[in-house]
């Protein structure tokens, strides 16, 4: 039987960590979406230097471990005169890391819209930007929602990386509680439940959105 007294006695610590996890995830989620969208557009533009930058960005950040990026911003950047708290460093790392995956999802969504759609828009006199905005992106979004939803769920779970760099998140607090109480099993079960409280509604929400969009036309 789980020892609920731990949950009750240390509820404030759990809650503090939970709040930090929510805040870091939310900020990283919004930031990674915008960075990802910009990088995705760079990757499909015909302006070569931008395209190269976008490709390099994705290949670099997608192919190194998140911990390495987090440590870079926590213990690496002070050498350059930039000092971040564990929370800030971890959130930046999360945003950058996730944005590389989101960029790929958005890019493949845009590319999966048939070429004829762009041609139809352009041949009617619409500009490239107008066609993108009114014809391509609304169709791409539908394709992109499931993979982006998965990235957001990964992001919430990956935020546990903050614990390694004193980010005071849920996982960090759990480490403290288990060190204090010598209870390991129960503490991490509670932590898992806290994460589920975030990720299950997120995946249900994505599923709902997916269904609604599928019915839209």
């Amino acid at each position, binding site marked *: 039987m789980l020892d609920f007294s731990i949950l009750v006695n240390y509820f404030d610590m759990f809650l503090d960590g939970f709040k930090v996890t929510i805040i870091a995830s939310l900020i990283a989620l919004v930031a990674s979406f915008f960075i990802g969208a910009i990088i995705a557009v760079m990757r499909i533009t015909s302006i070569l230097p931008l395209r190269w930058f976008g490709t390099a960005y994705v290949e670099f950040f997608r192919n190194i471990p998140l911990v390495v990026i987090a440590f870079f911003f926590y213990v690496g950047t002070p050498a350059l005169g930039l000092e971040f708290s564990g929370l800030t460093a971890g959130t930046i790392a999360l945003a950058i890391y996730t944005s590389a995956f989101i960029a790929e999802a958005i890019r493949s969504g845009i590319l999966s819209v*048939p070429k004829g759609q762009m041609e*139809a828009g*352009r*041949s*009617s*006199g*619409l500009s490239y930007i107008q066609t993108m905005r009114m*014809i391509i992106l609304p169709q791409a979004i539908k394709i992109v929602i499931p993979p982006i939803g998965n990235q957001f769920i990964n992001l919430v779970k990956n935020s546990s990386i903050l614990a390694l760099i004193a980010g005071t998140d849920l996982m960090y607090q759990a480490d403290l509680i288990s060190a204090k109480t010598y209870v390991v099993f129960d503490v991490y079960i509670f932590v898992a439940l806290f994460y589920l409280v975030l990720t299950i509604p997120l995946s249900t929400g994505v599923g709902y959105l997916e269904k609604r969009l599928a019915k839209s*036309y």
Partner: protein
Amino acid sequence: MIAFEQVNKFYGDFHVLKDINLTIQDGEVVVVIGPSGSGKSTLLRCINGLETTSDGVLKVKNIQVNEKKTDINKLRRNIGMVFQHFNLYPHKTVLENITLAPINVLKQSAEEAKKTAMYYLEKVGIPDKASSFPSQLSGGQQQRVAIARGLAMKPEIMLFDEPTSALDPEMVGEVLDVMKALAKEGMTMVVVTHEMGFAKEVGDRIVFMDQGRILEEEMPVEFFENPKEERAKVFLSRILNH
């Protein structure tokens, strides 16, 4: 007026269009025929700049299409295009498909654009489908919507890229009828097609292409009765005698 002067086009090493010289007058209906891969569609797509030319001069209404300073979006307002696979916008209703460009390019009011759209939907025979989505229509109906979408911009030139090739045989007639009516009204039309009946009946001129070259340019009667080029004779015998 559309004028090709010594136009060439390459895809890498592949020479798609070879020394094209062709003039199309206002109000003329020119039908481009020839075997697959002969460059017909590429030729058509150069006219509204969907394809670039490698060298030579291509002018539409005296404006050079492939010139950096040419406002291609402005030129395209005047050139409607109908595609083999319709390319309707699946996330928009029939009405929205037709009014999108008039509202966003010509800056018409929604009301004005709707009126124009309904006029053309009436004309292509499916006003009752205005609020349907493209996926709810048959191929023939979708292509008629695509024609109405092109016409709603009130272009002076209409380009048709194999408009009936993706249709069920039963649907071909309804699309060709709309095109015939359009030709009668004096629209300048360039039509890439395999419909020889249409070419014969409606075309003012037949352009026969093979391997990137225009081999023959002739009045329909003359072309079909008396093709001069050996390649054209073979092509016609293959598609007409079976």
